[in-house]
């Protein structure tokens, strides 16, 4: 089959560094229809930089950390902005952070990048994490404070390298954050992403994965807890364009309170050339109260007949009365029973955080959400 006749994916075909190539969204576009644009505070309509988000890096000794200008040749290599806000961030950031792990180097401890909102104005950012072939590292992105912030993060994972990322959105209540996380996997690269989104008025995070060679393996795990009035949106895209790659997406969220709104979009494309792809995506939402809403939309587009496995599952529901009854029937009071079941709902995901201190911190955050 020639290039001309190759079926094109209907998903995410548009990409440009130029913000003018994207119209200001109106809310009718497929990719914007779930997002309350009025709460974006102009991130989608050209708001200029007027504030800052401080970036602090506590790096493993083996990791090179640089703060670079817009003209650095390493920026924008793996990722081309795919929507208006992403292009706006790319057009407007002033300094970028570049982390590099050299060939075959194994970082001895996690590298933590802390993003702290100053509470004033709009800010844009750009981050690149580059692992050269056979390197290994763990990187934590820790977002806190109050901000109106849009940024792009590029993860460039070299041949046979392993990158594990934890991104914690632990923002103050009034924060607006729109972010793209793009991972590009070279041959036999491994990428693990663990996203935890708890705080913020509106968080829209779009993790995506592309493969530059066969044998890549991506796992994208996510956990969110949505309180009254919050809008937490996760839009995943895995683009299988190489043979024999794997992807596994699992996002789980709990929602409680009036107008708590979760959005999960899971797009997986398996292109003609991606024979032997093995992919699975899952989203589950636990609606703890009335007045909360979860939109969950998995899209699996298979353009080849030769897949090893492809599936998706999506479900939103309330706490199961039978679970609560069973625990209560053993003397456990309702509130404790509820907490046990919710903790159980997240347990399998939390086990995937391999760093004990980070797992404890996330667990403590989730516990605190449950106490609210």
């Amino acid at each position, binding site marked *: 089959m020639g290039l001309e006749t190759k079926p094109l994916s209907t998903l995410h075909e548009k990409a440009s560094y130029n913000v003018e190539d994207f119209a200001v969204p109106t809310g009718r576009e497929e990719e914007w229809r779930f997002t309350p644009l009025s709460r974006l505070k102009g991130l989608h309509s050209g708001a200029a930089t007027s504030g800052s988000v401080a970036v602090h890096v506590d790096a493993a000794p083996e990791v090179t950390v640089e703060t670079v200008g817009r003209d650095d040749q390493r920026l924008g290599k793996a990722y081309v902005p795919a929507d208006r806000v992403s292009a706006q961030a790319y057009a407007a950031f002033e300094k970028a952070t570049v982390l590099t792990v050299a060939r075959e180097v194994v970082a001895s401890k996690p590298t933590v990048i802390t993003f702290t909102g100053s509470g004033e104005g709009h800010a844009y950012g750009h981050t690149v994490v580059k692992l050269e072939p056979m390197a290994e590292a763990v990187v934590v992105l820790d977002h806190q404070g109050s901000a109106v912030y849009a940024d792009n993060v590029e993860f460039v994972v070299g041949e046979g390298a392993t990158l594990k990322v934890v991104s914690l959105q632990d923002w103050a209540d009034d924060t607006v954050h729109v972010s793209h996380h793009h991972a590009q996997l070279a041959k036999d690269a491994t990428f693990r992403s663990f996203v935890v989104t708890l705080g913020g008025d509106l968080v829209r995070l779009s993790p995506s994965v592309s493969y530059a060679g066969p044998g890549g393996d991506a796992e994208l795990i996510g956990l969110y807890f949505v309180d009254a009035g919050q809008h937490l949106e996760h839009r995943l895209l895995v683009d299988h364009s190489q043979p024999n790659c794997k992807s596994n997406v699992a996002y789980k969220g709990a929602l409680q309170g009036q107008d708590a709104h979760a959005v999960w979009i899971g797009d997986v494309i398996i292109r003609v050339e991606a024979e032997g792809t093995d992919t699975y995506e899952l989203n589950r939402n636990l609606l703890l109260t009335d007045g909360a809403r979860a939109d969950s939309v998995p899209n699996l587009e298979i353009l080849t007949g030769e897949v090893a496995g492809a599936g998706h599952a999506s479900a939103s529901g309330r706490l199961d009365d039978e679970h609560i009854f069973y625990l209560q029937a*053993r003397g456990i009071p309702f509130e404790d029973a509820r907490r046990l079941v919710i903790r159980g709902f997240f*347990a399998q995901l939390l086990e995937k955080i391999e760093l004990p201190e980070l797992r404890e911190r996330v667990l403590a955050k989730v516990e605190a959400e449950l106490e609210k």
Partner: protein
Amino acid sequence: MSDVSRVPSGSTLEIHDLHVAVGDKEILRGVNLTVKAGETHAIMGPNGSGKSTLAYAIAGHPKYTITSGRVLLDGADLLEMTVDERARAGLFLAMQYPVEVPGVSVSNFLRTAVTSMRGEAPKLRQFAKDLKTGMDALSIDAAFAQRNLNEGFSGGEKKRHEILQLELLKPKIAVLDETDSGLDVDALRVVSEGINRFRSSGETGVLLITHYTRILRYVKPDFVHVFAAGRIVEQGGPELADKLEAEGYEAYTKASA
């Protein structure tokens, strides 16, 4: 065993004229039954006659509506209590179909349950010891403690796990809903021994729901009740169970239809 003239040293469960509906369908139509400490009552009856409904209604499952009647444990009104209060008052229900709870480990569940029942956390070492003793006695592999509650347990493993809870939580009155169903001979013996250990103090009462006399050879009942169409239609001693097994329920289902 049940000498009425003797002052009982244990508890009493009293069910008076209990009517229960699911939705607007009436399922229990006036159940009267008293279970005293030291007594074992067997309830036998055809499928769909309302045996599990009785068990769940006493335990407080939200699906079942009590339309009239009273249920008392040592004089206290169980129907006024929440599900967990009933359990802490001393009622235990071993379920016909124990529920799978994802992400909650058996050991965490048991420790939480024991803590709730006693009002304080058990000493970790003592608890670990009790758990091991309990699991050994029921031939439950130690690895089960780390598994998710009932998840992927075979039918027989679930039932053994229910009896493990019975022994750890030490209730006053146990309602066992078809704990014998789906057990092979060895498991039946092991489970029966667990029930007998629970009964041995003479201060606890058992209400045992079953279809088969098989378990009654190990766990000897004092009374046998025949349940049909939502009420008790006949009572007798252990010999009634043999008659039921030989002749079936036809006589009762016809009469109560």
